[in-house]
């Protein structure tokens, strides 16, 4: 019985939050890795693209709510997703037209593009704060839980409760659907194949008649979709605050690099590696260990390796180790 309790506590505090957070990071890292593969620079504006996408979803949610439209037990934000993605696509294509295209035709060094993307970051960040303010915004509605801790206890008779939030369920389901769609697109469709060809060998792709501007356009559209979905899911699960998206850059980049920059499968794997390291290292294990250890060996402290304030340090240390040991990442990425 104690063993079961330990497993439930583990699932409740480590496994489910880890999977949800990992899915959010994976979606973010996919966006970064696609931009890197096709446009060949690290897009520092990705975090704030997520913020812009999420912000449009928040505003639309409020609009829908004022019209009395809701999505039953699910958050209204899901209904607004297609429109929010449309807005983000327009935003990114506009940005590409106005800013990135100039440097692409000039064949500027990647580091110049990185600086430019830093400039974009602050413009997006400024716009987000200008429109919606710098504070927390709650836009979650509908049913809060799929399984409540109390119901679970009554159902099973265990001492530990298992709570499964709707947002966690939605995050995981959406991430699975998005990833399946993305891989179907990349592997089966003509446009997807031309994207992979362009990413593998630009000159060869150009020779075989692939239109680079079309590839770039499709990439930005997919990135907009991924960023908006990741931003909305993160915002629903935690809360929407413009500045947190800038801070998400570090774990997102760490995920993409750990998996191998430019490699989509790597980005997903990297997202889960980073998420689970963060959660396991900053979780106070006392609750689980109490059930597993004999009474006289029970831990006196919290058995927390690092306080949660240092969760960024975890992704950073993993990033450093990967850079030192295997700079191409776990799955072979493009960059050395």
């Amino acid at each position: 019985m104690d063993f079961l309790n330990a497993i439930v506590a583990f699932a409740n505090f480590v496994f489910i939050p880890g999977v949800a957070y990992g899915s959010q990071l994976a979606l973010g890292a996919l966006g970064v890795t696609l931009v890197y593969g096709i446009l060949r620079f690290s897009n520092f504006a990705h975090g704030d693209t997520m913020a812009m996408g999420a912000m449009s979803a928040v505003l639309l949610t409020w609009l829908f709510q004022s019209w009395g439209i809701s999505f039953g037990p699910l958050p209204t934000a899901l209904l607004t997703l297609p429109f929010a993605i449309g807005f983000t696509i327009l935003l990114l294509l506009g940005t590409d037209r106005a800013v990135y295209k100039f440097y692409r035709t000039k064949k500027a060094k990647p580091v110049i593009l990185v600086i430019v993307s830093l400039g974009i970051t602050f413009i997006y960040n400024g716009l987000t704060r200008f429109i919606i303010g710098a504070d927390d915004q709650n836009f979650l509605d509908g049913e809060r839980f799929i399984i409540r801790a109390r119901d679970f206890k009554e159902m099973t008779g265990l001492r530990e409760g298992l709570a499964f939030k709707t947002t966690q369920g939605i995050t995981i389901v959406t991430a699975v659907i998005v990833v399946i769609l993305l891989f179907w697109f990349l592997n089966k469709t003509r446009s997807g194949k031309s994207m992979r060809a362009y990413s593998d060998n630009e000159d060869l792709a150009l020779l075989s008649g692939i239109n680079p501007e079309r590839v770039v356009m499709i990439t930005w559209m997919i990135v907009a979709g991924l960023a908006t979905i990741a931003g909305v899911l993160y915002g629903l699960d935690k809360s929407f605050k413009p500045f947190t998206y800038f801070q998400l850059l570090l774990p997102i980049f760490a995920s993409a690099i750990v998996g191998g920059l430019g490699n989509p499968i790597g980005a997903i794997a990297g997202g889960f590696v980073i998420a689970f390291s963060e959660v396991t290292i900053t979780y106070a294990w006392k609750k689980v260990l109490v059930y597993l250890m004999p009474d006289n060996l029970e831990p006196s402290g919290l058995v927390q390796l690092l306080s949660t304030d240092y969760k960024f340090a975890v992704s950073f240390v993993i990033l450093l180790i990967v850079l030192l040991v295997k700079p191409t990442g776990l799955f072979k990425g493009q960059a050395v």
Partner: protein
Amino acid sequence: MNDTMRTTMLFAGVALLIAYVGFAQSWNSALLIIAMGLISSVMALGVNLQWGFAGLFNVGIMGFVALGGLAAVLIGMPPTEGAFSAGGWGVLSALILGAGTIFAAIFAVKKMTSGWLRTMTVIAILVAGFFIFRAILDPAVERIEVINPAQTGYLGGLGWPVLLAWPVGGLFAAGAAWIIGKTALGLRSDYLAIATLGIAEIIIAVLKNEDWLTRGVKNVIGVPRPVPYEIDLQNDPAFVERAANLGFTPVEASTLWVKVLYILLFGAVLLILLWMAQRALHSPWGRMLRAIRDNEVAAEAMGKDVTARHLQVFVLGSAICGIAGAMMTTMDSQLTPGTYQPLRFTFLVWVMVIVGGSGNNLGSVLGGFLIWFLWVQVEPMGLWLMNLITSGMAEGSALKDHLIDSAAHMRLLTMGLVLLLVLRFSPRGLIPEK
């Protein structure tokens, strides 16, 4: 118009702008802009060394600046009574042990042949080291933090003259830069950017959370100054008399005089660093760096050690940012870890370097003053603009209130736009590299 004329005109223009603030607003704000402009110029010089000379992209300036601020606290503040005997040795030995663990792990990696045995040994060393480190550190930290937590609750500093903190701040930043450079240099340029972004966030997290070191978000206030206090000057009859002769009230004269003293100190630092940077630029070493920047492969073929030179210049540039950080904390007389924002301390310095003219030291100085001036003045200008835009709207309308409230966020937008416009239309900046 030749180059020297152009440079002189630009500097004169910035001087006029600041003088305008002096006449139109107050000389106190004008002097403050000059003092902060000097500090900004020092930061920009450091970044110019990295970016302009060597093409290294550092997004962690905030972290190096904050380390400089930490140095000001650790050198300048008086030691906390009894804190060191309570937990100082514990903390010190824990830190030494932590460093020893990492060295042992590196040693194991270097000496053993690769394979699962080596991996297991390294993991075992790190895990064991971490638990012993925490076992020694935690009780020591607890003992330090219970000592009068409302006022101290931290180790305090050495109580040495705060001017010493400036070079020490440089050393701190150089140490952090060495660790980052050692890992990320020699790989793709983007990796350095991401690694520096990370180290900056972590340095700030440490300053915010390690109360025994910096009091965390409770802030350290009252860092001793290298210049006299206003209140002492106001109580000094000789000073008051001299001020009266010049037509100043004692309060006004004392605040102005303190700022002038700071400006002299900062100006001296800037001049020394500028002279050194100019010498470096025109030395064989500077030419080698630019050769590496312009064509890495060719320079390597000529037998230049690219990674070593990059590491060198990265450490030097970061050290300069550390010095600037110590200067800033000295002038503010306080360390407030909560106020370190990447926008203010990383991005703004980048705008300074690029607008001023990357690769040109005088350009960085000009950029430092000009962008700092804009940074201070954009907010009132934004408010004015918003008032203008909304002047036609009905009083009390929601949109009008929102726009006026949001004027404060105009800074981000303006600075982002300035950077993009300069990069696009004048990528060589106001004073281009020769």
